[in-house]
């Protein structure tokens, strides 16, 4: 499995397959068959759910790397808690993605048996954990985005997604409170902590553009009221991030060239290494139960 240049794979967005195969997911779960099935292909919805799930799976893994390495016992526990929340959310989203896709892949198959080119997470979440300031700055940028996104997803016309998002949103509100508090402490702390967290924001900034990119998949699910068009979240995200950085005496980096590609399977060099570690047991013992 190559972790080098991604092959020229076909785009898996909406419209890449001809007639939409409509498959009401929730019919078996006792829900009223939702109206979202009309017009959106399972293909687009599965792709959208993969993006949501992969963001949380990859970030959960990065946070898990802090286990036993936190700056103090209590923070070690806090990071592990957030990591576990993200894994829980990822498991539900990937399970739903697999059911929607209809190829018999469950959440474990999606997490452990896909290569980097098949992952749909934004590049922001796959960057190595760096120092504590970097991890917290990344978490804050992502939490601020997630909080806005999942508040809307909780009102999705897709009953199962709305249920997952509603539960996740409670957890995300706590994550944001935690990361915001730390940005204020580090930014307005010592000269050392200020310099480190400012440098983290400077390095991370070019990975924030991707959070708000939208393509045919996003627009298709947004038009049906199933998903959120990420581009609509940007103004509120910007306002929120600017306010916290200002209070933390930090400078908002200039928008420059933005990284892109994660949603299409184009990743940084870091994701392949992370997956090699994360998937090693599942790859060595295919089909094992644990």
């Amino acid at each position, binding site marked *: 499995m190559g972790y080098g240049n991604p092959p020229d794979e076909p785009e898996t967005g909406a419209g890449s397959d001809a007639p939409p195969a409509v498959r009401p997911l929730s019919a078996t779960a006792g829900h009223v068959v939702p109206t979202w099935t009309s017009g959106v292909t399972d293909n687009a919805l599965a792709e959208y759910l993969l993006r949501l799930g992969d963001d949380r799976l990859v970030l959960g893994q990065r946070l898990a790397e802090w286990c036993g390495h936190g700056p*103090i*016992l*209590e*923070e070690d*526990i*806090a990071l592990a*808690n957030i990591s576990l929340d993200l894994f829980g959310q990822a498991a539900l989203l990937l399970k739903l993605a697999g059911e929607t896709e209809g190829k018999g892949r469950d959440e474990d198959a999606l997490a452990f048996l896909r290569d980097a080119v098949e992952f749909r997470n934004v590049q922001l979440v796959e960057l190595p954990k760096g120092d504590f300031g970097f991890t917290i700055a990344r978490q804050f940028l992502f939490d601020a985005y997630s909080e806005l996104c999942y508040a809307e997803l909780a009102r999705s016309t897709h009953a199962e997604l709305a249920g997952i998002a509603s539960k996740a949103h409670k957890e995300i509100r*706590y994550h944001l*409170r*935690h990361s915001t*508090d730390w940005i*204020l*402490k580090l930014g*307005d*702390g*010592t000269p050392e*902590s200020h310099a480190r967290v400012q440098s983290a924001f400077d390095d991370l900034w070019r990975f924030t553009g991707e959070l708000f990119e939208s393509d045919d998949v996003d627009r298709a699910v947004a038009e049906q009221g199933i998903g959120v068009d990420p581009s609509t979240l940007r103004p509120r995200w910007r306002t929120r991030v600017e306010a916290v950085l200002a*209070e933390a*005496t930090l400078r908002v980096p200039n928008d420059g060239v933005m990284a892109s590609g994660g949603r299409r399977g184009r990743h940084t060099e870091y994701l392949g290494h992370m997956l090699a570690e994360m998937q090693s047991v599942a790859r060595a013992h295919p089909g094992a139960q644990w």
Partner: protein
Amino acid sequence: MTSPESRASSLDSSDTQWPLWEVFTQEGQGAPHEHAGSVHAVDAEQALQNARDVYARRGKIVSVWVVPTASITASTPDDMGPFFDPGNDKPYRHPQFYKVPRGVRVY
């Protein structure tokens, strides 16, 4: 939320050991807050978050109090005699002669 000044000063210290806070959790409306343990934190907001992670993540906690350990005044073992002498020879001191109305929960 603390003021910027106090945030800075709380981290300026060369002492890397953060202050200790005592945690009290309440398991339901009307139940007493009970001592659950302690956490390190640089301020009250962080103490609350840490207490939530360590003591209130599972279970049915509805309220958490955090108190700087330094704010607590405790009795000492030397107080055993004069402080806690139960006075069993003075039964009139014990409120056990009252009838408890039906329907009142006795703790």
